[in-house]
């Protein structure tokens, strides 16, 4: 976030608006959302934390593509304080969790809320510390990038275990510890893909920019393989073991009509479309294709989160749509102005554009 100064106001509006909107939807009883909040907030978490993570990782590995879009990616850092706020809204909804009936050492309402809010807050703080330095082009950025990534990983793990896995208590899949962070990362890169399209429209995409777009396409392709691998690794073990309490998680979802449809949807959207879409050499170079794939990935993740929540927990469709709209709106409002600093090699990227 830019301290005070220009854009600060707009950002505050964005945050306050989004928070207010969520509060209205969840608390004022405008409509019954039930599981919607979990889905919406988890998506926001993936977007806000994932984009920053993608930026941080590329800064660490010295990847070139980040340069031109760093500024836009780091908007995620600005939105992160929202997460902790919105998660508080989950308090009245904790009844949705089966363990709420007989709480345990780890799974009980106060600790559940406390640890998650605390962690989301911590991640937001680290994100800000990192983002500020990255945008300033500060040479001492890397340690903060590392710290952020670590916190990000833990936070996303908790999203997996606490927010989603414990909905199906006592069902356990340790894979969530890798699955969710990777998905968030995937989302982050996908957002980057969209940003390139936006920039392309703005005509800001030069030869170097195009190379960068290709790198993002390559990354998306790589992530589609990785995601597919993780998903298969998880499914294969459940299928092979066929332990009643493990596979019941799948059979339940196959039994329910709505969720049965979701399963192929998100597999196609998160793996098949990106993989085959970006397989050809040329496709990776076309921002349009990359952006389209990005959209498919984002929708795929949404579908998957829905699948995890349903059928155990009903989800109010209208509420969910509204909440997602709020998330998108907040993002657009929070976008930086052109004259804000863009980090080390952004200038070079712009230069390349000429």
């Amino acid at each position: 976030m830019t301290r005070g100064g220009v854009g600060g106001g707009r950002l505050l509006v964005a945050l306050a608006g989004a928070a207010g909107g969520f509060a209205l939807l969840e608390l004022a009883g405008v409509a019954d959302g039930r599981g919607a909040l979990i889905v919406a907030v988890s998506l926001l978490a993936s977007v806000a934390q994932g984009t920053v993570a993608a930026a941080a990782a590329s800064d660490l590995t010295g990847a070139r593509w980040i340069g031109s879009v760093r500024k836009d990616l780091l908007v995620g850092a600005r939105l992160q304080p929202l997460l902790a706020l919105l998660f508080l809204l989950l308090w009245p909804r904790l009844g949705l969790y089966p363990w709420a009936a007989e709480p345990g050492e780890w799974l009980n309402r106060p600790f559940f809320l406390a640890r998650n809010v605390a962690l989301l807050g911590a991640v937001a703080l680290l994100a800000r510390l990192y983002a500020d330095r990255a945008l300033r082009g500060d040479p001492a950025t890397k340690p903060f990038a590392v710290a952020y990534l670590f916190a990000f990983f833990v936070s996303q793990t908790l999203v997996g275990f606490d927010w989603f896995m414990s909905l199906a208590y006592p069902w356990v899949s340790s894979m969530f510890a890798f699955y969710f962070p990777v998905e968030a990362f995937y989302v982050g890169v996908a957002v980057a893909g969209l940003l390139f399209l936006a920039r392309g429209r703005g005509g800001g995409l030069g030869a170097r920019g195009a190379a960068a777009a290709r790198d993002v396409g390559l990354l998306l392709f790589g992530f589609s393989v990785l995601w597919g691998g993780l998903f298969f690794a998880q499914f294969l073990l459940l299928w092979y073991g066929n332990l009643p309490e493990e596979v019941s998680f799948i059979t339940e979802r196959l039994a329910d009509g709505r969720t049965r449809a979701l399963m192929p949807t998100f597999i196609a959207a998160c793996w098949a479309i990106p993989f085959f879409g970006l397989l050809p050499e040329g496709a990776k170079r076309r921002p349009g294709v990359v952006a389209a794939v990005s959209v498919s990935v984002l929708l795929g993740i949404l579908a998957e989160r829905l699948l995890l929540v349903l059928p155990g927990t009903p989800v109010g469709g209208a509420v969910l749509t509204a909440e997602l709209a709020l998330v998108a709106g907040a993002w657009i409002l929070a976008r930086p102005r052109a004259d804000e600093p863009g980090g080390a090699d952004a200038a070079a990227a712009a230069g390349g554009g000429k």
Partner: protein
Amino acid sequence: MMDRRTFLHTLGLLTGGSALSACTPGKDRRHLVSALVPPEDGVVPGQSVWHATTCTECPAGCGMQVRLREGRPVKAEGVPGHPVSGGGLCVRGQASLWRLYDPRRLRGPQVRDGGALRAATWDDALSRVASALAEARGAGRTGAYLSGRTTGALAALLAESAPALGLEWLPRFEPFSHAAIRRANGLLFGAPEVPRLDAARPDVLLTVGADLLETFVSPVGLAAQVVAGPAGRRWWHAEPHCSLTGANADRRLVLRAGSEPWLLAWLLARVAPSARRPLPPAVVAAMPRPSIAATAEATGVAVDALEALGAALAAAKEPLVVAGAIATAAEGGLAVAGLAALLQWTLGATGRTVDLARGEGYGDVGSLLDLRALGERLERGQVGVLFVARANPVRHAPAAWRLAGKLAGATLRVGLGDLMDETLREMDVVLPLSHPLETWEELAPRRGLRELLRPAAAPLGDTRAEGDVLLELRRRAGETVAPSYQERLMAGWRARYDDAALRAYSAAGWAEEPVSGPPVGLDAGAAAELLRGVRLSPPKPGLVLVLAPSIRSFDGRSRALQLLEEVPDPLTTVTYGPWISVAPGDARRLGVADGDELRVTLGGWSAELPAKLQPGLAEGVFVVQRDVLPSFPGGMDPATGEAICALPGPGLERTGRGGRMPYLSGSPSQQGRGLIPEPIHRKETAKRASLYPEHPHPEHRWTMAIDVSRCIGCGACAASCYVENDVPVTGAREHRLGREMSWLRIEPFYDAAGGVDFLPILCQQCHAAPCEPVCPVYAAYHNPEGLNVQVYNRCIGTRYCSNNCPYKVRRFNWFDPVREAPLDLLHNPDLSARGRGIMEKCTFCVQRITAARDRAKDEGRAVRDGEVVPACAQSCPTTAIVFGDLNDAGSRIAALVKAPGSWRVFEELGTEPSVHYHRGGGEGER
């Protein structure tokens, strides 16, 4: 004497021919066994003949049928409906074939010259005996013939031969002589007998010391009766230590050693007033009347427990009290036996469930008193030639007597036996006896019952029947006697039976005769006398060493048989070698863990034994199985001649040695994993979630149901499985490494209160077996009849199946299985052989299933329910195991599986085993 033709005729009737070939020496058989041999010879290659005979591993005389293949015994099983055993065969009975083929069996006569025994021919061995007999007769010294319990035809022969040879046939020597019981019954009722019990009828049963399920008189039969008890039957067992019998009783009362008289005296006083058969006033007057408080104090049993027991006995319709074994093997054993007998009388058991008229036929068995007398006579040099047959007095006489040394007093010492033992080692002439499966014989294990023994195999060595030895000696003494013991027997049967009766006798292997004894009456005077003799002294405080009998080797006579060491002790799961059971509390005090060696000292006697912790054992009580001790440390109760087995004040100290000892259980507790679930009812009604399509079993679906309330943990099933399936017997070293091969094991699980549940675990033949899919070569797969088949010659030995088996029932051949000759003859030809590197396991005796299916096919019918009986189920004395086809709606198995309260182990894993467990009807609660 009968002529040749009648002899052969009789023989034919008795054998149906099969014995002919069985009796021909081994080398000829090789030619005999071929498809060309006419079937009436009884040896059709690939076909087996079943042969009814009698088990002789203990005096009980259970029925046994032996399976012959190519004229060789390959399997022993119980005889269904047998009057003694009821149909089962215990672990020792299973091992009798191992005795037959034991590599260490005496192959020929031995005589001592100089210091050592050396091989000799029968002729010079016998001539040496004959001349010694002649000399003794000349010198006017009568010899002595000491034998183990001997009944039936041999008893008759001995009775007439002993005088003829100038010998005195001493009272029989049995370590478990039940002398106190006989003495008491003699005094009170004038019937010095071990009564025949009916343990099936009582609704309240109290056993004091008497280990009905292990070694007491007729364990197999009694076990069958006990589990068949009426619904709601309550069974108390009182003892100082923790025996298998106690573990199986509904309630185990831990008595202070030596406090048995207190318990029984209090009970007598408690129930006498209201008893259905009032005691004579004189007796009542003489009755000791300890207060309940004092009794509780002395016995260590809580007051309310005593109250409950007394009330139950008083109120019972069919009460039964039995005292014996450990309880009577102590000072005051006579009092215990007497009080028990009086309780039986006054509670109305005598004459109903306690039958003195048709007793167990222990009348002519002596006791240690007689053995001591023999010792004295030997010392005084009054004994000429001493014969010791089928008995090991040196081992069982109190060590302090130094009996071995005294034997030198005889002019010549002649031993008859099959395996070298402490006594035979002292003999000048050792005459090897043929195995009961190699000779003709007739037993009368109890009054009114005759049992047939017939040869199932040619003698493996140069051995003879005891009867033939006696006849030969008489012949050499110039007498004219029957040409052979066999012909003498035949003549006897010919005289007794006509053809039909003889054929029936031959088919069944036993025949019952009516016995009428006069109804016994109580001698009030003697009773009062006995009661006045009862001393209620407070039991000595301090540690106690209990010498317990062993279900695996009885009094030690079966100890040499390796199979019985391979099969674990039911309570500790120790397999090889001796050990001392220590209560966990004492272990903590002594600072010993499993395997640490303890030196046990009693006066001058001492032994070093590894410790094994046993939950449920009372603190201060240490248990050693008497069969493992090199010599008998106890003394004798002069009143009865019983060996004293509860020894106070043993010294115990760590030797510092120790190490891994061979026991099989990884944990005495279930660790709260609900293998035997509490509450019982935990059957999952909902269809288990699965990602796989259901697969059908069109023809058969073989299934097993096991009643854990009937399982007494005796291990007969395991032993039977070893023999039927040629399961490798690997030995102590492998067991220490945790490499037992048993396909079927009985897991003892102790609860916090020290109670034990026994869970037989064999391959569960899972419907969705975790072991199958992980095999890379389809060596393990699921056959259409629901069996989890293991294809031995496809197996490449990855051991993945075993890793993935939650029941750990798969066994890997770490080395090539080896069996020392002639044990290699004991193998089931219906199985494919296994070599090193191959995984093997139980398949519900698939060879028997195949045989039954083929038989049914030949006869053009479906397989009948109960037609297939796996080896384990057949041998189970308590018929806890039921096997059948689940597709057959009317079958027993179908009903048992559906029954509420039936469960499967680890149901939550979704393996869907084909083995179902349940807790019988009603008598579920332990």
